């Protein structure tokens, strides 16, 4: 029950008045980010990161993680009211949420979405509370080789589990690693791939990449769709909330299933988007009246929202315990921690217990605060969305440019943001996944240094990667993941021969 004591201590850290204020501020900013096209969880946090430099560490990370919750909630509002997913993981929510809104049941759909998000996140936080310390204790025994094996597994899972073509996943991942290597080598101090350009000395910051790829890229995509906001206005009455809650109890099976899918996909780097689609598919397959899905079935809102939030939240588990983020947004949070000199990983739990448990406690509080804030403020957000894109678009560009500049006070970064933006658009259109690129850019240095340390330990022999069952098992699993896409092709081949 040590965890409970720690958690109680965490609550005492998080429950101060200023911190609660930062929570509300964070949630509000987060919803705003989630609602606006072109600003999402990952690049929104990247842009706001420099603003928190002057804040106290714990307060800063509490605010940032609350922005994260807010963004998760915000995506649902646009999906349901306007049939525009504010975030990729709320695409599945549009299938039934938008029809519900058109039938005049917007209030019920929103309540269902927010409540399911809350449930999904809540169970994922429970998972973090009890599992994270165990994982961290276990990971304390990890050496460089084991660390590299875990990182290897993370990246190979992308190839194995991604819906995009494996060659493209592998290519963008390698591009991410290559960009991460640009600049000064941390071990020997040699300059790499700078070709004499001074701006490249400090390398590519992944925050710039995130702002460009997700922010500018998304704006270009939005322009292509010729976006016009025409939606329902929404108000949520208390009796609708209570009635919906009573109705939701009937779908407990769907909720549990979606939580499980979400937590699994979050901890492994599957991410929130595939989790939401999987949960939607499962709910539909398990339902008695399959035909009502897509026409405004409330279960079709519950399933993807629960899974997306469970995944989004549990993505923080490997980030905190192993220093390996499960999603781009978790990666940006990790970047924030690094900037404050907090190295996420097993040691964080023993060296900075105040911080870790304060953060975990703030996840509980942030979710409750978030649920209350979204339920009460929905009409305002709906009103913001009726502002035409000819105003919102350029304002978001300005915000992105300011965000890119403030990371290092460098004009060159603003130019890079544009370049990343164009590639974000091209990559999206040509089905190159963006998440592996960002994660490779974040973890590049870490993966390289653990690889080189392992090589030093073994005097250059690769045998260190199967020296003990743990590292060998992780490596074997990585290769299974890496080669997984070949399986269907092989099956096809064997069948055609038989």
């Amino acid at each position: 029950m040590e965890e409970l004591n720690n958690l109680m201590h965490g609550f005492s850290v998080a429950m101060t008045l200023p911190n609660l204020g930062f929570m509300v501020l964070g949630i509000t900013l987060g919803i705003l980010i989630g609602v606006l096209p072109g600003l999402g969880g990952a690049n929104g946090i990247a842009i706001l990161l420099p603003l928190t430099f002057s804040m106290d560490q714990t307060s800063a990370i509490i605010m940032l993680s609350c922005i994260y919750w807010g963004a998760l909630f915000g995506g649902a509002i646009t999906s349901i009211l306007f049939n525009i997913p504010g975030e990729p993981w709320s695409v599945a929510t549009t299938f039934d949420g938008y029809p519900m809104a058109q039938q005049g049941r917007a209030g019920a759909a929103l309540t269902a979405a927010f409540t399911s998000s809350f449930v999904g996140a809540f169970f994922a936080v429970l998972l973090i509370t009890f599992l994270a310390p165990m994982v961290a204790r276990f990971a304390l025994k990890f050496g460089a080789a084991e660390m590299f094996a875990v990182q290897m597994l993370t990246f190979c899972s992308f190839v194995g589990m991604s819906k995009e073509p494996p060659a493209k996943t592998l290519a963008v991942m390698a591009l991410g690693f290559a960009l991460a290597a640009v600049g000064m080598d941390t071990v020997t101090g040699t300059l790499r791939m700078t070709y004499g350009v001074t701006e490249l000395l400090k390398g590519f910051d992944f925050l710039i990449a995130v702002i460009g790829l997700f922010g500018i890229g998304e704006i270009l995509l939005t322009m292509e769709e010729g976006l016009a906001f025409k939606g329902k206005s929404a108000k949520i009455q208390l009796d609708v909330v209570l009635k919906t809650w009573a109705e939701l109890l009937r779908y407990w099976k769907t909720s549990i299933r979606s939580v499980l899918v979400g937590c699994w996909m979050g901890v492994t780097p599957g991410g929130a988007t595939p989790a939401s689609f999987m949960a939607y598919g499962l709910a539909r397959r398990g339902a008695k009246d399959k035909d009502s899905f897509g026409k405004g079935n409330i279960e079709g809102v519950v399933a993807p929202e629960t899974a997306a939030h469970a995944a989004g939240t549990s993505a923080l588990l490997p980030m905190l315990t192993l220093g390996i983020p499960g999603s781009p947004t978790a990666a940006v949070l990790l970047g924030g921690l690094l900037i404050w000199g907090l190295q996420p990983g097993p040691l964080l739990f023993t060296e900075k217990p105040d911080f870790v448990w304060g953060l975990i406690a703030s996840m509980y509080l942030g979710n409750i605060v978030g649920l209350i804030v979204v339920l009460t403020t929905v009409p305002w957000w709906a009103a913001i969305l009726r502002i035409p894109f000819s105003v919102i678009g350029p304002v978001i560009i300005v915000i992105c440019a300011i965000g890119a500049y403030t990371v290092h006070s460098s004009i060159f970064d603003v130019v890079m943001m544009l370049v990343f933006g164009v590639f974000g658009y091209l990559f999206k259109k040509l089905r190159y996944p963006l998440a592996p690129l960002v994660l490779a850019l974040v973890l590049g240095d870490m993966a390289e240094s653990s690889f080189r340390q392992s090589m030093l330990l073994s005097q250059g022999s690769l045998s260190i990667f199967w020296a003990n069952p743990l590292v060998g098992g992780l490596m074997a699993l990585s290769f299974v993941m890496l080669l997984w896409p070949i399986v269907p092709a092989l099956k096809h081949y064997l069948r055609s021969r038989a």
Partner: protein
Amino acid sequence: MERSEEAAEAGLSNRWPELLVALFLFVMGIIAVIDSIRVGIGWEEGEGPRAGYFPFYIGCILLASSGWILITALMKFKRAQPQFASWTELRSVMQMLVPLTIYVAAVVFLGIYLSSLVLIAFFMKVHGKFGWLATAITSIGVPLGAFLLFERWFLVPLPKGPIELMLGL
């Protein structure tokens, strides 16, 4: 999502974008490999792996995977391809991309405040058909808000140009 080439509206097919992006990745792979070889990909006695050790293999993976994409793209080059985007869609994208590029160039020379003002005013006036008052309030308000928020409250300086210098800010 994917539309065939015979879709209602004419547009750009995936053929060239696919090829050019793969080519770009391939070139990046070459850059990584060449520079890694320059700094040394071998083993330094007493020091361990050299600086190019890890990026060299990364470059090789990049070459192999983008090469694969390149070959597949070339193999189905003559076949019908899904549409990348219709011409109308591409025109909308350009309506954003061109001002955006000019904006970024302007930020480099004029600083962020004046450029942002012009960008917002341009979009509101040309695409939004807003009145002068609404345009003026928004296009002046946003940079002013950014100035107060960043320079005054959070003490984060933003890029300034000759105009701000003249005003003595």
